[in-house]
């Protein structure tokens, strides 16, 4: 590496002018159309995160309605039809509109900063993906408001969702919402993979990639390999319903279990699509607050990859009562138990990090501690239901409801809330309240366990899931009342969290670039970062760059400032290969999303919509890619 003609003094003198030029080149102007045209990964990620949390709040409101209904036997608050819609909406909304998008959105914000680049790869695709996600969420919720919400459960089993039993358009709306959300998730996955492979700062070799970035790389590959299955499933379901194909009609050679295979071949990896980013967040928070590098970096990376691989070998454990061959079930029992091993390795690495470090118990770390407790409990019941005889007993009971809420909320939402407390200062420039954070943690942790632990017992007592009411003779009323009251504590915890976030965004303490004295590159720039992220691209020489550089950041110079330009580097060693341009703001991704939305929604009603609907999409895509003679088109 050469110092060329630049010295640290040169940088200091020319820095102001360079910042001005970069700001001009990378800015998102004010105004309505500019807001629709922006391709800044930070602005889009912020929208994604906010939208996903709105969906979390809406899904939470549905959960409270269900708890109100179930608090007493033979309650008349919600009728059976509405109840079916509500639990379907709750599950679909939480999985497809909250959990997956919010995790990817965190990556859309953080990965480019953590790998030291100026924008995400394919930023226009990123803008497109957000509009598609928003349209999918709108489709689902507007339909629900119109009493057209899907009512077939979040996994929409046939024949219930097929043409014979699922009259009207409810199941189609579910299936097309899937198309929207998977399209957007797949787009983001491609952006993340290419950003991590090709846009890492010079010197960030594979073994210097931050653990959160590793976790997102594995997640993105799981998305790429798992989500096509649900798109095949939802498309074939719509075809069965719209043009009379027979994929799921046993009378004409179709098969209902085919649906379950396709759904769970996606659905099980889906759990890890939500969980893997969360463990990346945990690794990051643990390292920062234990004030030492995370113990067992290589072990954690290998665990992430093996979890990703194993996640494709588990799907049949959702189908143990479907009457499959015994040998197959045994295989899936073994693989379901095997996945506890990489999870265990990671937990021991985190414990070792905390043990050997000097942990500072700030709010983010509290949520991580809560995660350990809750996730291990959920993992233990997971090993229990991996056993076929046990699963046969508790299948479709509240035991399963308890299990997957422990895994999903304990395993993903706790780390996510911790991550919001951790990265909030980077997103907004302001810290969230430490005092309120402790209250939020206490309320959510206690509220969660009081709400969901008794559901294990309700399951053992035989209470089935998805029932809109139960008779007073059943021994379930006391616990149900207890669960419903506890859910209020949980809800208050979330309300306090929202309050803290809104309040802190306006008037929280100013954070400065690196309030936690953390080690990764996102903390090397201002909070919130400028549109171009870094004035100079960092040059990385270690795994924890900000802990080893003693107040001085090694950087690269020589990028153009009059066009959007970033460094492309080699996959393994991150040697710089080119100064690549990054696309400018454009309105076309928005129009492409509008055209795609019109086509997808119309195709619920007529197959010909696919034909005529493709024409505006093609026009929008040509507008998107056609060169405009900007400096970014030069080479």
């Amino acid at each position, binding site marked *: 590496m050469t110092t060329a003609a630049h010295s640290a003094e040169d940088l200091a003198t020319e820095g102001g002018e360079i910042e001005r030029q970069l700001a001009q080149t990378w800015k998102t102007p004010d105004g309505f159309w500019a807001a629709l045209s922006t391709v800044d990964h930070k602005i889009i990620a912020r929208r994604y995160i906010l939208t996903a949390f709105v969906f979390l709040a809406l899904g939470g409101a549905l959960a409270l309605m269900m708890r109100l209904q179930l608090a007493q036997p033979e309650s008349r608050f919600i009728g059976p039809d509405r109840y079916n819609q509500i639990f379907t909406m709750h599950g679909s909304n939480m999985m497809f509109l909250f959990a997956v998008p919010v995790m990817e959105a965190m990556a859309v914000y953080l990965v480019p900063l953590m790998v030291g680049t100026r924008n995400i790869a394919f930023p226009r695709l990123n803008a497109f993906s957000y509009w598609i996600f928003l349209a999918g969420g709108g489709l689902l919720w507007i339909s629900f408001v119109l009493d057209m919400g899907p009512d077939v459960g979040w996994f929409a089993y046939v024949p219930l969702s097929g043409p014979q039993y699922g009259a009207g358009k409810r199941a189609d709306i579910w299936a097309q919402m899937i198309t929207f959300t998977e399209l957007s998730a797949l787009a983001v996955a491609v952006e993340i993979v290419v950003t991590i492979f090709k846009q890492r700062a010079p010197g960030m070799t594979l073994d210097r990639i931050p653990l959160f970035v590793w976790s997102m790389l594995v997640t993105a590959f799981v998305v790429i390999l798992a989500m096509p299955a649900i798109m095949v499933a939802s498309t074939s379901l719509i075809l069965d319903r719209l043009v009379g194909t027979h994929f799921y009609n046993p009378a004409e050679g179709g098969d209902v279990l085919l649906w379950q295979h396709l759904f769970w071949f996606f659905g099980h990896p889906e759990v890890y699509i939500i969980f893997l980013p969360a463990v990346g967040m945990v690794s990051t928070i643990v390292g920062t607050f234990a004030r030492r590098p995370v113990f067992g970096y290589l072990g954690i990376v290998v665990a992430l990859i093996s979890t990703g691989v194993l996640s494709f070998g588990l799907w049949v454990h959702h189908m143990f009562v479907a009457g499959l061959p015994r040998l197959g079930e045994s295989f899936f029992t073994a693989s379901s138990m095997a996945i506890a091993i990489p999870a265990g390795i990671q937990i021991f690495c985190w414990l070792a990090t905390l043990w050997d470090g000097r942990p500072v118990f700030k709010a983010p770390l509290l949520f991580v501690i809560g995660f350990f407790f809750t996730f291990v409990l959920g993992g233990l019941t997971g090993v229990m239901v991996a056993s076929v005889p046990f699963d046969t007993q508790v299948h479709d009971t509240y035991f399963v409801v308890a299990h997957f809420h422990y895994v999903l909320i304990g395993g993903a939402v706790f780390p996510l809330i911790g991550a919001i407390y951790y990265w909030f200062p980077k997103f907004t420039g302001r810290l969230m309240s430490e005092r309120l954070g402790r209250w939020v943690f206490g309320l959510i942790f206690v509220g969660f366990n009081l709400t969901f632990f008794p559901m294990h017992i309700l399951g053992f007592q035989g209470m089935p899931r998805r029932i809109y009411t139960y008779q007073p003779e059943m021994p379930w009323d006391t616990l149900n009342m207890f669960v419903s009251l506890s859910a209020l504590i949980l809800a208050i915890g979330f309300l306090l969290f929202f309050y803290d976030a809104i309040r802190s965004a306006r008037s929280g303490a100013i954070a400065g670039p690196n309030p936690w004295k953390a080690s990764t590159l996102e903390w090397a720039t201002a909070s919130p970062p400028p549109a171009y992220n870094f004035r100079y691209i960092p040059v990385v020489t270690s795994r924890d760059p900000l802990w080893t550089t003693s107040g001085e950041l090694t950087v690269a110079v020589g990028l153009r400032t009059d066009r959007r330009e970033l460094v492309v580097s080699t996959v393994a060693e991150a040697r710089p290969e*080119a100064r690549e341009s990054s696309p400018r703001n454009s309105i076309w991704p928005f129009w492409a999303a509008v055209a795609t939305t019109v086509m997808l929604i119309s195709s619920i009603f007529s197959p010909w919509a696919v034909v005529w609907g493709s024409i505006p999409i093609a026009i929008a895509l040509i507008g998107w890619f056609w*060169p405009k003679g900007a400096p970014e088109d030069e080479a």
Partner: protein
Amino acid sequence: MKEHPVLDLVDLPPHGMGAASPTWWGTLAFMLIEGTGFALVIAVYLYLMSVATQWPLNAPQPDLAAGTMMTVLLLASLIPNLILTRFAKARALVSVRIGLIVMSILGTLPLIVRAYEFPAFAVKWDDNAYGSIVWAILGLHTTHLVTDLVDTLVLTVLMFSRHANSVRRYGDVEDNAMYWNFVVAAWVPVYLCLYWVPRL
């Protein structure tokens, strides 16, 4: 934070080709997504076959003529496609223009053959599950043919415009040619599945 310059990037090319280009990797990633899609629909075909008492369901063996012609045509198209890639690498504008016109024609011909393939199975999508999966697989591949054709046509027009003579455009031509290779490669297992698996 104080910055200390240790590296000067000014001599790097302003655009990377091949594996140095993010677009190339993005194309690979989309090929992985769509390849997974093809693998899945073939898996669905095999699954439906495994639960059926006879296969094809209430239909004769598929007529080989159209599908085999498609296979020959697609495989043959790889040669001009490869030559086009070479032209693009050499940045030979006139040759690239001719190559793109040839590939536009070679992208249109399969669509004509495809029109004869659907009837070759003598089953409709709504006759039974066999018809459904056959039409779905053929439909999926046809979508790829159409998408790539539109891509190639737009690129051909672009190469006759004032934007043509740019390294970036030659990279687009290479990526588009790579995607056509994928569309052809995806057809081979599909062809074996649709036409030969029922004959096993």
